[in-house]
């Protein structure tokens, strides 16, 4: 029924002492879309890299179109008909669009060593048009175009070579909704043509939508294959981490619940060039979500609310005491917290102990007389780290040694230590494994029930729908709509308001 195009049997890959892939067998069929999912370090990228020719397996055999398959390089694999799209930049600066499209194949356009640019551009033009990229000029230098356009051009290049297998490795993460939609289209088209598609992604909803089959990997080993109708994010997650998620992932309730009392009021807030006229009230015990495209201004909005960016006009006020948040110091003093999107650069002190990170904003509370005693610091750090279940050797360890998820736990611990009443979070679960994500969601739920308020920006619609009491959407720096939490709220509803 389904013709097997490639079979990789008993694949192993070691990097020094690290066993990235342990005895995995995978089959890719004509016209099928196969999803590969797993946490960071599960081996999914390594596996597909071996198929794409990036490096050879330590052990294992591959058969492609009935013959033994041992690609020497990515170019080799490409020539055989296996195209590989990744998250990073795949086109080369310093060359035109057309040159990039025909990279390595200029020979077909040259006579006696001179490349016929007109012909090159002509053919490139054709390829671009076939892939919905009419607006791209093949003779322009590639740097002229945005990251997304370049990714599309790269995709067009891959498709023009009529691949048998198309591997898409986390490509959609860096794209806008428009870009993602285009990729989905392409996948559907290729499936029709009979191309085998392998897609690797963290966005489980995407996987659910696109795939015929999903293979789950964990710690380099094969766990299970989920078929057609059984595919849903919950099952995938369960298999990815290997244990029951204790029932819920996001919040269990489907109603918007928060108290009447307003704790923070933003009025007509504007920063020239970024956003304008934003107003909203944050209530006690409320999780208020803010959604929008990456450049809509919402990230800067949060920084402005916290006091890190000076607004051109408008006010941010804490109702209790009527205090205006004019600087980060004022905010912190008033028990407001800010969790930046860029964890490593903006919220963590890398070459510093976990302890120093955790106590950083709470020093005033730790004082004995005029001084801060090491014993008090250690006590607080240990307590908070335990509360957040940070996986570490001791609080004296350097923060940089921790994994992404644990780093975020430390950041949260820091603010919890200060008895924060209002949290301002920017993409709090970005780049974090499913297990830790679940913990953070639970924490947010607990905080909400304690009467603590959360203002949250997220680029994951699902997260907003799953966690927020209300969602405000921002488009082009302006507020567009407000959605109330409900079981019927869908991504499509929100997306409409932000693009």
């Amino acid at each position, binding site marked *: 029924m389904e013709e097997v195009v490639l079979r990789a049997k008993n694949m192993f890959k070691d990097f020094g002492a690290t066993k990235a892939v342990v005895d995995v067998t995978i089959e890719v069929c004509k016209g099928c879309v196969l999803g590969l999912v797993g946490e960071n370090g599960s081996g999914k990228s390594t596996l597909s890299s071996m198929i794409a020719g990036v490096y050879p397996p330590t052990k294992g055999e591959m058969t492609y179109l009935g013959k033994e398959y041992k690609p020497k390089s990515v170019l080799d694999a490409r020539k055989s008909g296996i195209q590989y799209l990744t998250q990073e930049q795949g086109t080369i600066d310093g060359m035109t669009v057309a040159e990039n499209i025909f990279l390595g194949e200029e020979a077909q356009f040259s006579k006696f060593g001179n490349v016929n640019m007109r012909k090159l551009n002509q053919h490139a033009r054709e390829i671009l048009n076939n892939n919905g990229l009419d607006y791209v000029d093949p003779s322009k230098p590639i740097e002229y175009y945005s990251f997304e356009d370049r990714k599309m051009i790269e995709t067009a290049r891959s498709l023009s070579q009529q691949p048998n297998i198309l591997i898409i490795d986390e490509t959609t993460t860096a794209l806008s909704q428009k870009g993602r939609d285009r990729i989905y289209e392409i996948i559907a088209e290729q499936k029709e043509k009979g191309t085998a598609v392998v897609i690797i992604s963290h966005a489980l909803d995407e996987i659910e939508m696109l795939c015929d089959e999903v293979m789950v990997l964990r710690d380099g080993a094969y766990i299970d294959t989920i078929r057609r109708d059984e595919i849903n994010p919950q099952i995938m997650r369960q298999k990815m981490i290997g244990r029951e998620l204790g029932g819920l992932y996001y919040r269990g309730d489907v109603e918007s619940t928060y108290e009447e009392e307003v704790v923070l009021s933003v009025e007509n807030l504007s920063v020239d060039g970024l956003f304008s006229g934003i107003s909203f009230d944050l209530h006690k015990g409320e999780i208020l979500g803010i959604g929008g495209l990456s450049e809509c201004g919402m990230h800067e909005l949060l920084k402005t609310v916290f006091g890190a960016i000076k607004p051109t006009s408008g006010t941010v006020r804490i109702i209790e005491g009527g205090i205006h948040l004019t600087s980060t*110091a004022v905010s912190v003093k008033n028990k407001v917290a800010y969790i930046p999107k860029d964890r490593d650069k903006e919220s963590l002190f890398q070459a510093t102990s976990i302890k120093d990170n955790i106590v950083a904003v709470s020093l005033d509370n730790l004082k004995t007389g005029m001084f801060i005693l090491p014993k008090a610091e250690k006590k607080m750090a240990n307590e908070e780290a335990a509360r957040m279940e940070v996986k570490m050797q001791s609080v004296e360890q350097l923060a940089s040694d921790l994994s992404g998820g644990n780093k975020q736990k430390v950041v949260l611990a820091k603010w919890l230590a200060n008895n924060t009443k209002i949290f301002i979070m920017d993409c709090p679960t970005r780049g974090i494994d499913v297990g830790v994500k679940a913990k953070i969601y639970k924490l947010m739920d607990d905080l909400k029930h304690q009467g603590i308020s959360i203002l949250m920006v997220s680029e994951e619609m699902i997260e907003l729908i799953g966690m927020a009491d209300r969602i405000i959407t921002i488009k082009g720096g302006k507020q567009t709509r407000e959605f109330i939490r409900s079981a019927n709220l869908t991504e499509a509803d929100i997306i409409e308001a932000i693009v």
Partner: protein
Amino acid sequence: MRKQFRKIVPLAGLVILIAVFSLTTDGKFTSANNIRSIIMQSAIVLVAAVGTVFVMAHNNLDFSLGGACAFSSVAAYLISGGNMYLFFILCIVFGVLCGLLTSLIHIKGRVPAFMSGMCIMFAGRGIAQTAVASRSMLLVSATKLNNLWVFIAIIAVVFTIGFILFNYTKIGKYQKLIGTNPKAAELSGISISKYKMLAFIISGVTVGIAAWLTIIRSGSVSANTGLNLEIDVLLALSLGGIPMSGGSATKMRSVFIGTLIYFILNNGLTLWGLNANYVDIVKAAFFLFTVTISIDRSQKTLIE
């Protein structure tokens, strides 16, 4: 393991120096008089270094020290007219003034701190030179304080207060956080300008005290008072293993270890009677060696 090694190098260097000189000078190095000399010679740099640590911790260099020292001595001299207590207080006052100016130019004028420091250095030295050229500035009464116990007392008090402030109060702790990651510090509610200014003020206090000690040793204010103080302090701290870009690994003990290495080396080489032409080479070799090993290259990669 590497990190541990890097931390001990300065201390090991000091211990080795002390051992080498003790064993090779027939007891001259360890004589009471010699130890007394070393303490008194190193006091000025030691005191100034305590304040400088605060500035270096938040990733700045204070180049104003020499000029500030000269200016403070001159201004204090002219106003106090020889009263040693008043002179002491005024030295500190003017030292703080220089520190404030340096930090204000840096923060408000958005000039890199090392440049604003140099402005103060040139201005201070220039003013001092002009003032000294117009009248003699002898302060013989100051020399009466040139004794071991005054110096030990000052060193002890300054170092203790510096140590406590640096390790047990916000003032010190925030310097380290700002040095490690200024963006994260700001987003943690730390007012960067305020704390940078505090660091420069503390540096100003210690340079004022250092100026006072210089006059006690010299008996007069001259155009060369405080010459090269900022370089000496920087060298001493480097020898003590202080990280160049500050941050959490900054330690107050670098002050003691580094300054002692510097002056013990100087003292020991003289006791040996090393051929004068080789002295600078030996010093340079020792400096390079210690500093190269102590530089923490790993810190560079962490904050990409």
